[in-house]
């Protein structure tokens, strides 16, 4: 009972601290004369686009019915045209191509388009990084010196140089060499980088599986590929799932560096929106929130998977 009360107290303290920090930010912004303008932010996510509707043929506006404009053409044909916001009066004479009015529909704003690109490039990159990581991880524990040394060199080089520099090298050198698109070059650069970390995660995972598992499988007549595929990797995967999820989250965050090669992902979109508005605070907070939604969803999914896989161990 007493313990419960303390927990409640500390939770209240937590909420107060959060409110305090928010208040501090607000106060600080007042001191630099920042005028908050949150109202503009939703339109960077979605906005109402207007489509101009033009007359398909010359004629006279007969009237309106059920949101449709009735146009009588010079050839005495009656046309029904959907126009949500008409600008012409009944009886107006129009030529072909004259504006009749406009319709509206919702369209993704620049930040949402950028978020979509971030998710897309991250997904492609995650798949590539998993493949690279799996193979180099297996090479690293192989007894063949060629494979072993190749993967060691790769892992050390990647881990010893900054991602930003790697992105430049992949984009300007490898990308040009193989005429890769910005998207592919970006996804590949990220995959090469994260793949080295995934390789180490996978190596550790595989080595954590007791030797007896391999021996039992060998004794049953299974070959190397079958043992990896059916015995070791399924068990190792479960063990490294949290580490892998963490690496994927890093990858999503690191994808913001791709803005440097002009890939219009979320961060680049954020910079563009900031450049054309006067709301840097709101925009960057929004961008941060969008990243967080993606990474937090991934971490929830990981927890769900872990719980589901926990059954058999």
């Amino acid at each position, binding site marked *: 009972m007493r313990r419960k009360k303390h927990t409640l107290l500390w939770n209240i303290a937590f909420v107060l601290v959060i409110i305090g920090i928010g208040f501090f930010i607000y106060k600080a912004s007042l001191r630099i004369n920042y005028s908050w303008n949150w109202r503009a932010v939703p339109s960077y996510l979605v906005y109402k686009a207007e489509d101009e509707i033009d007359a398909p043929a010359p004629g006279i506006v007969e009237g309106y019915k059920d949101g449709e404009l009735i146009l009588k053409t010079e050839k005495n044909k009656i046309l029904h045209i959907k126009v949500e916001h008409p600008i012409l009066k009944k009886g107006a004479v129009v030529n072909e191509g004259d504006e009749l009015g406009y319709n509206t529909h919702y369209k993704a704003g620049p930040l949402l388009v950028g978020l979509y690109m971030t998710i897309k490039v991250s997904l492609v990159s995650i798949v590539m990084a998993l493949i690279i990581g799996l193979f180099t991880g297996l090479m690293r524990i192989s007894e063949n010196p060629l494979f072993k040394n190749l993967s060691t060199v790769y892992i050390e080089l990647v881990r010893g140089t900054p991602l930003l520099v790697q992105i430049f090298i992949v984009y300007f050198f490898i990308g040009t060499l193989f005429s890769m698109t910005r998207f592919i070059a970006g996804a590949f650069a990220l995959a090469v980088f994260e793949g080295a970390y995934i390789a180490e995660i996978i190596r550790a995972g595989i080595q954590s599986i*007791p030797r*007896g*598992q391999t*021996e*039992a*499988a*060998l*004794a*049953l*007549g*299974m*070959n190397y590929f*079958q043992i990896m595929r*059916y*015995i070791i990797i*399924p*068990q190792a995967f*479960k063990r490294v799932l949290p580490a892998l999820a963490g690496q994927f989250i890093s990858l999503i965050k690191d994808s913001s560096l791709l803005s440097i090669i002009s890939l219009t992902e979320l961060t680049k979109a954020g910079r563009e929106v900031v450049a054309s508005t006067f709301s840097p605070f709101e925009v960057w907070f929004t961008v941060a929130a969008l990243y967080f939604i993606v990474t937090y969803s991934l971490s929830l999914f990981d927890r769900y998977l872990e719980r589901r896989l926990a*059954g*058999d*161990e």
Partner: protein
Amino acid sequence: MSDSSENIIVAENVSKTFPNGVKALRDVSLDVKKGEVVVIIGASGSGKTTFLRTINQLETVDSGKIIVEGVDVTDPKTNLTKIRADIGMVFQHFNVFPHLTVLENVMLAQILVRKRKKEEAERIAMEFLTKVGIADKKDEYPTNLSGGQKQRVAIARALAMHPKIMLFDEATSALDPEMVGGILDIMKQLAKEGITMVVVTHEMGFAREAADRIVYMDSGKIVEMGTPDEIFNNPKTDRLKQFLSQIL
């Protein structure tokens, strides 16, 4: 056995030194006849496990030769997966696959190695799970099983491959005392059915009852070999006498 003169395992002058310098096997030679039950006894560290593991080449040899079913398994050109499928092995620590159910444990290698259809593999798996008395646990994961039950799964997994030879490496040593009898009964039953068995064990009761021949190893060597009667009632070497006096 009508064909009892045929040697299914021939080990000739097998020696093995581990990278750390331990001489685990020194010039070990042993023939095992088809259908024979050979029990290897000896103090801990005498090389019993190492010798057993050279038969299916989980352990390589430095010199000497091992012929299994006419195939030289110590020849680097030999396709080991094929011959290993014919040699069942039961380990001290079971080594069941924790990510697979009991049934899947027994089915997997049948499908992958024996190329059996799923239905056939399941039928055979159930046959052997029933035989070792654990059919009712077929959908459990190994983590929910006791040591004795895990070892039953491991035995069924090996038997389902229809091996010609079964190797047992201290199959009861990691079990709680009340589980030992059940596993030994299964092993005795198998011995009666005529499958070739090489058994490393400290269970002298089993050796006395089930063995056709007992091999006594010490410091990587076969010191003495004979029928249970010869070994237990008429030990020749002082080392065996001393060993028996310590464990009996």
